[in-house]
């Protein structure tokens, strides 16, 4: 990792401006990553601002207008089985889905980073116990675990966020643990130890900043994962409940209208794919940019 050559002195200095880092240049050269970043910005803007510009709200029911196909009338992307405007619902659902993805990522990161830090720093019994717990959690195929829990709780946006976070922090913990373990033996950490710095200081001031690169990459990919996870459990009926729209639950009943109103299934799915692809592109670009030695793309 590039961070391995940084000494303890330079770390206490403010980091160089983002724009001037070589990593950012590499990121900008990565066309797909730029495309992904644009996709995220556009989607976010559309979901935040879009609903205010539309003549319909996402909950306005107009039974006479139901099942209007896209581009056929006042409803640009058509209407659903209750005659609600699909574009308005897509955008409102986007708010929820993106927010769920983002919040779940934050929580998953917080858990994963803490556990990874502690496990990597202390190793020994604490570290082993924590990492075995991580291993055990990873033994469950993620959807199995998600469904087992979601069928048992009362679904709401916060509970779904927690649920997704609870089942997606393990990879981060592994990445951070490995990183911390390798950083621990470096000179600057040994120096901090010899100065008598507290454990907490070493962990959060010396080790963590040097593990930022993989964490940022993992965080970006985690958002993509969370959005997908939300769509899976909502599709299977255990996710976010109507009338709150989410991309996943817009798809829930779409299967039964596949013959008569295929746009009900196609549009939300396309939105999910777009969002997830964007985050994956960005994550991929970040990985290339922050760690030039790994060349998967």
């Amino acid at each position, binding site marked *: 990792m590039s961070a391995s050559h940084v000494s303890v002195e330079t770390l206490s200095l403010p980091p160089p401006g983002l724009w001037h880092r070589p990593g950012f240049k590499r990121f900008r050269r990565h066309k*797909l990553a730029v495309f992904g970043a644009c996709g995220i910005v556009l989607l976010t803007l559309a979901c935040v601002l879009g609903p205010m510009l539309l003549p319909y709200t996402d909950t306005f029911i107009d039974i006479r207008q139901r099942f209007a196909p896209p581009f056929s009338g006042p409803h640009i992307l058509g209407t659903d089985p209750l005659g609600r405007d699909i574009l308005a619902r897509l955008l409102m659902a986007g708010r929820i889905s993106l927010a769920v993805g983002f919040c779940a990522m934050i929580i998953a990161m917080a858990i994963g980073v803490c556990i990874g830090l502690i496990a990597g720093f202390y190793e020994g019994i604490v570290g082993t116990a924590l990492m*075995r*717990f991580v*291993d*055990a*959690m*990873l*033994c*469950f*195929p*993620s*959807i*199995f*675990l998600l*469904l*087992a*829990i979601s*069928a*048992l*709780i*009362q679904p709401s946006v916060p509970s779904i966020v927690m649920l997704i976070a609870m089942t997606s922090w393990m990879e981060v913990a592994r990445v951070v643990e490995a990183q911390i373990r390798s950083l621990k033996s470096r000179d600057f950490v040994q120096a901090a130890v010899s100065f008598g710095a507290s454990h907490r200081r070493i962990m959060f001031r010396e080790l963590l900043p040097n593990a930022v690169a993989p964490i940022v990459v993992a965080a970006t990919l985690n958002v*993509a994962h969370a959005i*997908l996870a939300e*769509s*899976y459990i909502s*599709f*299977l009926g255990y996710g976010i409940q109507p009338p709150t729209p989410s991309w996943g639950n817009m*798809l829930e009943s*779409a*299967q039964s209208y*596949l*013959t008569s109103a*295929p746009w009900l*299934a*196609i549009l939300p*799915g396309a939105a*999910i*794919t777009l969002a*997830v*692809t964007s*985050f*994956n*592109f960005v994550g*991929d670009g970040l990985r290339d940019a922050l760690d030039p030695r790994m*060349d*998967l*793309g």
Partner: protein
Amino acid sequence: MSSFLLRRFGQAVLLLFIVSMIGFAILHLAPGGPMSQFAAGGEMSQEDLDRIAQQLGLNRPLPVQYGEWLWRMLSGDWGRSYRDGQTVTAIIGSHIGATLQLMATSTVLAMTFGAWIGILGAIRRYSLFDSLATVGAMIALSIPTFWFGLVLIYVFSVWLGWLPSGNRYTIGDGSLMNQIHHMIGPVMVLALVSTAVWSRYMRSSMLEVVNQDYVRTARAKGLSERSILIRHALRNALLPMITITGLHVPTLLSGALVTETVFTWPGMGRLFLDSISYRDYPVVMGILMFSAVLVLLGSLTADLLYGVADPRIARSG
């Protein structure tokens, strides 16, 4: 070698133990329970319900329930389904075939196509094909599997009428052709993600090998590009690939669950969903444990093969 095996085995057993505790805790601590399926029928009074709960041992303290479950599990009794009273092992046994059929077929397909795409991409690095393959793989990894399934059904079953929209075979016609016909859709869906994963790993693995000294030497010796690829590069690039298959088991299982739902495929995934909605704890626990065993076997195999492929690998953790 054998001490390594033994250690890995010991670790796997310990992991399974933790897995069982987590699974048990999650299922039993959540609100709702198997009793509500009886209550929903609307015929039973609270008395009846309490009586059944007692018979099923649901009103005892959780550690006691867990202890008993674990003890039985160790002696080979995975319990009986609350729904039809069959043993959990029999139920899993009768569903696993359909799932393995899907998983195996799609893995073979994904290996073939993924390897091909990856190799071609590595040879013609930065070509149009390579770029398309890279973007395609990224999108494939981002598509919600179930949605891809829906789109397939719409295009090939509803619109074109080429493929059946679900099921493992037509009743009364269990012929091989009929079964294959039914498999095309779900296998395509399940293979999508694996193909993407394979092509990406294959590409980078191939790139690494191509730059190794022995390949350069072979080239210097004037061997044809084709024989270099097959004799040297491919063989060395494929070995680590096999480990990917082992590590890919959890993703495959998750994918199978979703695919089975969309295509009404009578496998483990659907069994799991059914059992969850009935709160059939013994079956849900059984499937969780069973899939954990599969996952551990997968990673164990991956470790072993990795060791075989590259004896220099340090065997730690």
